């Protein structure tokens, strides 16, 4: 039995220690906002926060998450940056198919928690691990600037 702290709640789970956090979130806890895209930390669809840092849950063993505060897309709107990013995403209609967007938003929030005035280059670097096949990148960039503005 491993106890996870997810979005501020203690959640005990039965899982072997090497199971990726992604599948515990999705299949065991049915927190399905976090998505599977590649399983190799290549696309960022599975991005969550561990102690405020963006990590790829598809390659994070659940045992490594046991002592951390985990935040997922389901809880990220509780914070000021998360709320600002989600509002900007809606305001600019960033999404198309939407499947990668949980991960995009989690990466964007982690960026803004660190850097309240990111440049385009900062955005490119922080978001470079998140693939969007619909290529909504123009709006992702604009929405991050918009969220930064609303947080200022």
């Amino acid at each position, binding site marked *: 039995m491993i106890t996870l702290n997810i979005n501020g709640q203690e959640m005990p789970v039965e899982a072997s220690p090497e199971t990726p956090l992604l599948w515990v979130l999705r299949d065991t806890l049915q927190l399905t906002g976090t998505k*599977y895209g590649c399983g190799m930390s290549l696309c960022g669809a599975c991005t969550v926060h561990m102690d405020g840092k963006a990590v790829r849950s598809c390659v994070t063993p659940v045992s490594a998450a046991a002592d951390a505060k985990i935040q997922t897309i389901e809880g990220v709107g509780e914070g000021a940056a998360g709320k600002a990013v989600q509002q900007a995403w809606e305001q600019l209609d960033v999404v198309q198919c939407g499947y990668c967007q949980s991960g995009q938003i989690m990466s964007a929030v982690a960026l803004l928690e660190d850097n309240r005035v990111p440049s385009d280059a900062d955005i490119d670097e922080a978001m470079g691990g998140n693939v969007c096949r619909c290529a909504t990148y123009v709006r992702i960039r604009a929405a991050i600037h918009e969220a930064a503005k609303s947080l200022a």
Partner: protein
Amino acid sequence: MTRSIENESRRRFLQGATGLTLALYFPWAMARNPESGGTQAARFEPNAFLRIGEDNSVTVVSKHLEMGQGTYTGLATIVAEELDAAWSQVRVESAPADNSRYNNLQWGPMQGTGGSSAIANSWEQLRHAGASARAMLVAAAAQRWQVPAQEIAVAGGVLTHAASGRQASFGELASAAAEQAVPEQVELKQPADFKLIGQPLRRKDSAAKTNGSAVYTQDIHLPGMLTAVVAHPPRLGGVVASVDAKPAMAIDGVTDVVQIPSGVAVLARDTWTAKRGRDALDIKWDESAAIRLNSEQAFERFRQLAASPGAVARQDGDAETALAGAEQLLEAEYDFPYLAHAAMEPMNCVIRLAEGRCEAWYGAQIQTRDQAQLAALFGLEPEQVSIHTLYAGGSFGRRASTSSDYIVETAHIVKAIDGRAPVKLVWLREDDMQAGSYRPMFHHRLRAGLDGQSMLVAWQHRLVGQSIAAGTGSDAGGGVDPSSVEGAANLPYAIPNMLVDLHTPTDIGVPVLWWRAVGSTHTAFSTECFIDELAQATGRDPVAWRLAMLQEHPRHAGVLKLAAEQAGWDTPLAPGRDGERRGRGVAVHEAFNSYVAQVAEVTVQSDGSYRVDRVVCAVDCGIAINPDVIRAQVEGSVGFALSAAMSEAITFTDGKVDQSNFHNYTPLRIADMPRVEVHILPSAAAPTGIGEPPVPPLAPALVNALAAATGKRIRRLPIGDQLAG
């Protein structure tokens, strides 16, 4: 029993009989491609596209899949416009699979989404749906208030009678409206009266896709459900010779190992356990019928085929004679690799078999075909197969599989366990990448003849590539698959002698499929690059020369002019820094009756690396239902097409796909995304699609820009590092 789908959905509508259910009946004409002059047989079909609840909600039922292209938003806008609803009261839900009500009117008796047809085929249908509902609400209000119907105004979901000061919401009138007769004829609005159409209304799916609550196939959990991961043969065409299931069955949580036609499936309580079980299998494959394809050898064979005439797709005048008599002869060959769709959500499907019925949950793109395949497999009538169409995490054509491959695979697994549990099939990224169904590889050879005044007098275009439509029942016969030559056979330029012909190899063994913009993904490239080469060879301006040859094609010319103007084509490009070379390139193309021109600006470094700085796009897709959704589709199409042009390729070595995941099939990332400017040509023409048409012009515009910057002509995609050295 065979009517149960319809009964069930009617019951659901009636349960909403807290409100008005409108089953609308009206005539519709078979949609026609204005250029092909198809049939126009009028028929009656029942349709049910909206319901209004007493809670004042307007629910629009979408017969089309929302895979990112904004269909839910666009279709709902059309209904809401004629209904005079408030945008805030409108929500959208997916239609059930039912080809008696939800056909794609461009496809005959077939429910499905594709060919950028959702808006085009629904336009008149949904306007009538909205206007009929509005008329019934007005009739109900007139009756209740005892006033003439023509004195009642409707706006923002509220009916008003000014003289008596009465007003009522849609919700208040819903039950009374349900008692009214469905009008036989309704008057549709004039475009000048549109209130919602043409406005940048917010997408209906933004909130759910921003807070993680949108439900995709991957997110379905049914009681008792098992998750399946499949071991597929390492080479297409391979089959299982023997399998040792013991190591997989030894894993806690693995419940079944079953052999199915496409491989071996491991079922388990969750995805990770199923994957571990799959990886533990010891399988011997019989590869006697497997393919042994090598991409380079295949290209070599395609080139040999291109030396002889193929099946004729277009013949104007006498191209051979004109070429022989030409003053100047130019020739170029272009190569295109297989491409994967690589949607962010790998293919997946959930199926439950219970009480003589099959229920399926997934991002269904061609419901009618899938329904027929599932029915045949389970020995059911199509009506006994329910499909719950969910949001699709991208498709780009993949979910319009001609064989319903991953859906049929799920059904085989359910069958193999005698339907004792619902099954979710999960393809891992590697399965998705290596399963075939690619954009076909193609080889093109073009020859052009110029006369003494450098006028283009002859054009010969030969294509070699597999047919997508062959065997699907949708090929036109005569050896020419229209989807292989679209964009080539209808080249718009005024050239007196033209021959377009096609070789279709049938023994390759790689499944091929529609890929966003289909034939135009290669034909726009070869034609627009070759035109550019000819312009350069004759010292002509690429825009002015195209315009001179487009006098009979005002919509092509319209977008080309607009893009050139907005890009500042006639003013020199700002120079780069030391060592940088800059260039600008243009392309124009029509696909699915929408017209798009793009001007790309590039900067090339001394080491041959390059970036696309800016892409200026002009589009003519008829009436712009939602200009912001159109802009988003153009932006995304530019990125999607740029991704393929820069670095995507599926290649084969001894029958094995060389790529497996995003490290060796490398999609565009944010740092390579250019600035995109979108200009929409005002139009009063009926709306056409925008999901695919902005894809084709990007690669030729880019490669023409690279040629302008460096003098080097790229004739093989992807571009890769061809500019280095």
